């Protein structure tokens, strides 16, 4: 078990002008399960590979248990990695795949046999020890890849999108299996994914990376509820948060957001923190689930409701997502409503946002405005 610390860690590939990873500062606690989340090409895998020792660090320092690791070769960092492609040695059977790393470390033969047996038993691989990877299913290969990491008993486990090759059902069960293994082993684990569901369900903390920069770190629900900028707001959540350009105005109750002829009173906001933005354009963020549909007979009781024309209906069974067009809003607005919603394509409905849960973002920096 180990504490992993990245201090201003950057990576620039030869021949490239831009930094693939830009001055990341991050500390992963002993025994923590941290998820690096971001879109494809954001630098999260590069960051992981630098921790592994598979990529050199251009600037900054990587520490494991307080010891600088920049110039320590991968094999001496006591780290195990599970790859997206599993990277099982195709010419070796499962037992040899599990034992390969231990043999190199000159672990005595009887000890190797015992550890392979234990890990195989733990992951349900005992019946397949004699099989080669091509004779295994996707899920079994995934477990062998995990077993190969576990059998080494490393300080840190790294996972590079290990579930992306599995089908949906297997992904859910393997996700649970990984969480279970983390609880059992209590080891420090760093997990890279672009899948927000994996991040939300597995990570004790999520670290969101965009364009090589660390955007936000926090426990999953905190990051979801308090996104640091519009990127996180859009990236986390499905459907993503609606971002609407509004004008902040002072009102009798405090501040209000105006778009078109709609005025949304922002009662929960601290007016004092918003004085710089009064009569300015800001970005209003509303999560789709923070909308509710108002029946025609109740409209007069909801003065903050506004009319939306239904452009598409996604009836998902457990819920219905309406994609709507609202006057004076450039982009479509998504509303996640009750599964019993009867809205049809082309209908004009009335929806209301929960003003206590809306977010405000600075239009220039895209950063969240502290307003509560």
């Amino acid at each position, binding site marked *: 078990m180990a504490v992993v610390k990245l201090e201003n860690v950057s990576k620039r590939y030869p021949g490239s002008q831009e930094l693939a990873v830009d001055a990341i500062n991050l500390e992963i606690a002993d025994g923590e399960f941290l998820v690096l989340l971001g879109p494809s090409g954001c630098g999260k895998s590069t960051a992981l590979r630098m921790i592994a*020792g598979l990529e050199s660090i251009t600037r900054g320092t990587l520490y494991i248990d307080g010891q600088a690791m920049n110039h320590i070769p991968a094999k001496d960092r006591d780290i195990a990695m599970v790859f997206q492609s599993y*990277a099982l040695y*195709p010419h070796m059977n499962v037992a040899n795949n599990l034992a390969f790393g231990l043999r*190199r470390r000159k672990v005595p033969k009887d000890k190797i046999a015992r550890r392979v047996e234990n890990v195989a038993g733990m992951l349900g691989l005992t019946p397949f020890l004699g099989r080669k990877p*091509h004779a295994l299913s996707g899920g079994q290969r995934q477990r062998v890849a995990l077993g190969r990491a576990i059998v080494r008993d490393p300080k840190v486990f790294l996972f590079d999108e290990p579930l992306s*090759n599995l089908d949906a059902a297997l992904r859910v069960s393997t996700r649970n299996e990984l969480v279970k293994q983390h609880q059992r082993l209590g080891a420090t684990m760093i997990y890279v994914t672009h899948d927000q569901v994996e991040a939300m369900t597995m990570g004790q903390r999520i670290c969101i990376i965009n364009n090589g920069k660390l955007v936000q770190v926090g426990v999953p629900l905190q990051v979801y509820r308090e996104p640091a900028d519009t990127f996180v707001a859009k990236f986390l959540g499905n459907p993503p948060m609606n971002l609407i350009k509004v004008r902040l105005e002072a009102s009798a109750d405090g501040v209000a957001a105006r778009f078109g002829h709609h005025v949304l009173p922002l009662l929960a906001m601290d007016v004092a923190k918003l004085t710089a933005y009064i009569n300015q354009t800001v970005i209003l963020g509303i999560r789709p689930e923070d909308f509710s549909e108002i029946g025609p007979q109740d409209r007069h009781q909801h003065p903050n409701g506004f009319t939306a024309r239904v452009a598409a209906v996604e009836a998902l069974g457990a819920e219905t997502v309406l994609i709507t067009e609202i006057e004076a809003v450039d982009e479509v607005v998504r509303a996640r409503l009750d599964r019993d919603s009867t809205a049809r394509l082309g209908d004009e409905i009335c929806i209301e946002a929960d003003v206590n849960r809306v977010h405000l973002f600075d239009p220039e920096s895209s950063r969240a405005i502290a307003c509560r």
Partner: protein
Amino acid sequence: MSLILRNWKRALLMIILSGYTAFAAGPFIWVSMMSLRTTPEISDNPYTFPEAFHWEKYAVAWSESDYSVYFWNSVMVTTIAVLAVTIIASMTAHCLARFRFPGNRLILFMIFSTLIFPPQIVMISLFQVLVNYGLFDTHLGLILVYIALQMPLTVFILEGFFSRLPQDLYDAAKMDGYSNFESYWRLTLPIGLPAIATTVILNFIHIWNEFLFAVVLIASDEKRTLPLGIQKFYGDRLEDVGMIATGVMISVIPVILIYIFFSEKMIQGMTAGAVK
């Protein structure tokens, strides 16, 4: 109706395949028949089955016509050359496929571009070089020439295969503590076996049958390889066709054995299951 059509299609396919097989195998069968017949018998009727099988011709060719010497010369030259080409070319291909360094593609292009030139072009200069270094009329000289000649195509084939092996395998080996050489030895060689087997077969057949360089660079009778040995039966006024056929059959047998041994590896999908 469709069943009849399908049967016709199948019949047509069988006819074409049989025709091609006869075309390809016909000369081989003809030579194998001639190898068991004497030259007067062949002169009487070249296209017939042997009336009596003269198996003793093989023994005569082997012992009395020095075929044993030529055969073992060929075995030695071919084995060493193929082994050296395989090791050097696979290491080169591994480096070119795995490591990013400036000029990587240029080196590959330069190696491959030597294939453009017909080997005869280098014959005179090569002859001179071998004479200068005291390698003319030596097996070592011939082996070095064969290694140089077979290297480009071998590197090209192996690099193409090795570069398709997933990088993750090598990263995993690196994390497991294996050095670059160990990765080559424990991963590239065993996983790349289908491609290596292909080059071994190609190189073996080519070097085993090679005549032009051998006839120019080898002068002594006792250093001849099999293709030169067979030539001995071409006299000025007489061609011992029967013995030539026997010699050809002796020279073909190792090629067939090599093919049987390596062809299985060649068609094995070793990387199946490596990824996904």
